[in-house]
């Protein structure tokens, strides 16, 4: 439906509160370490048997929870970078971003990556640079393919795109289809 206009995902380090995309993205997990004991929550730790989750426990927490518990002063959790944002993978991205399957590695590679910048890692400048360069490196092919694939199966073209790139691809397809309709006199 043309008239359905959902709240879009936020850009950069801000989420849009009412965006379904941002809510799903922020459910993705990242490796954390508890810097304090959490009493009375022991039932959440499958490996533990006590009433508390002890300090030092390593857990994968959803981004929304990691953000809420991360505080420079109180330090309830510390956060580790997921693999694909670390130096090793950043080298791969910087070498040739087009070879990477961002759906498998993501699927919210860009927006999740931007959210990681909230955690004050010393690698933030490099992460931000890689995110930007990766996007720039891949954008041209996404634009070209979305503008040239008319009335055909595009599943092969989108299978390796992250969610942001898929939205861009579909925007390009929509424009192409609307133009074709207009050319054929079907837009009235």
């Amino acid at each position, binding site marked *: 439906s043309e008239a*359905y206009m959902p709240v879009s995902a936020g850009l950069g380090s801000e989420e849009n509160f009412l965006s*379904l995309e941002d809510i799903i993205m922020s459910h993705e997990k990242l490796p954390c370490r508890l810097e304090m004991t959490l009493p009375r929550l022991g039932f959440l730790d499958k490996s533990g048997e006590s009433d508390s989750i002890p300090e030092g426990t390593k857990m994968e927490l959803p981004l929304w929870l990691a953000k809420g518990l991360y505080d420079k002063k*109180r330090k309830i959790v510390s956060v580790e970078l997921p693999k694909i944002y670390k130096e090793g993978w950043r080298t791969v991205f910087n070498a040739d971003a087009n070879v990477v399957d961002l759906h498998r590695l993501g699927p919210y590679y860009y927006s999740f990556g931007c959210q990681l910048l909230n955690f004050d890692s010393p690698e933030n400048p490099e992460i931000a640079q890689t995110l930007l360069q990766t996007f720039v490196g891949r954008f041209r092919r996404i634009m070209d393919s979305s503008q040239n694939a008319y009335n055909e199966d595009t599943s092969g073209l989108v299978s390796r795109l992250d969610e942001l790139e898929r939205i861009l691809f579909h925007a390009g397809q929509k424009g192409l289809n609307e133009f074709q309709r207009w050319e054929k006199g079907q837009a*009235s």
Partner: protein
Amino acid sequence: MFCEKAIELIRELHRSGDGSLPAFNEDGVRQVLEEMKALYEQNQTDVHEAKSDGRSDLIPTITFRHCCLLRNRRCIVSYLYDRLLRIRALRWEYGSVLPSALRFQMSADEMVWFNQYKKSLATYMRSLGGDEGLDVTQDLTPPK
């Protein structure tokens, strides 16, 4: 883990990415509200204990539960709000009388909202185009 029912509500809507309206998940919303009530009551107990018995070690747990409360709240209001956006779109797609199959997918409160939306739109359209008003929901594509 907390907030699992809440994310299920969001995923259910997100799966209908084309703007179609699934049935209102009354049970799902109720379960999330119940989880919020339980989290809040647990936190009330712990806050009291932290203040009266000096149990400052409970603060991280209280913070944890508060994050879950905020998350549940965000999921519920986003679920409800996105459904309103879909229902609003129905007015523009189908006109002011919706097919019964679609009405069936809406809750009673959503129908009330829809009827009020229709009234607001009608009032607005009457205010346009001089005495006759202007139906802006018609002729959305240009003539041949």
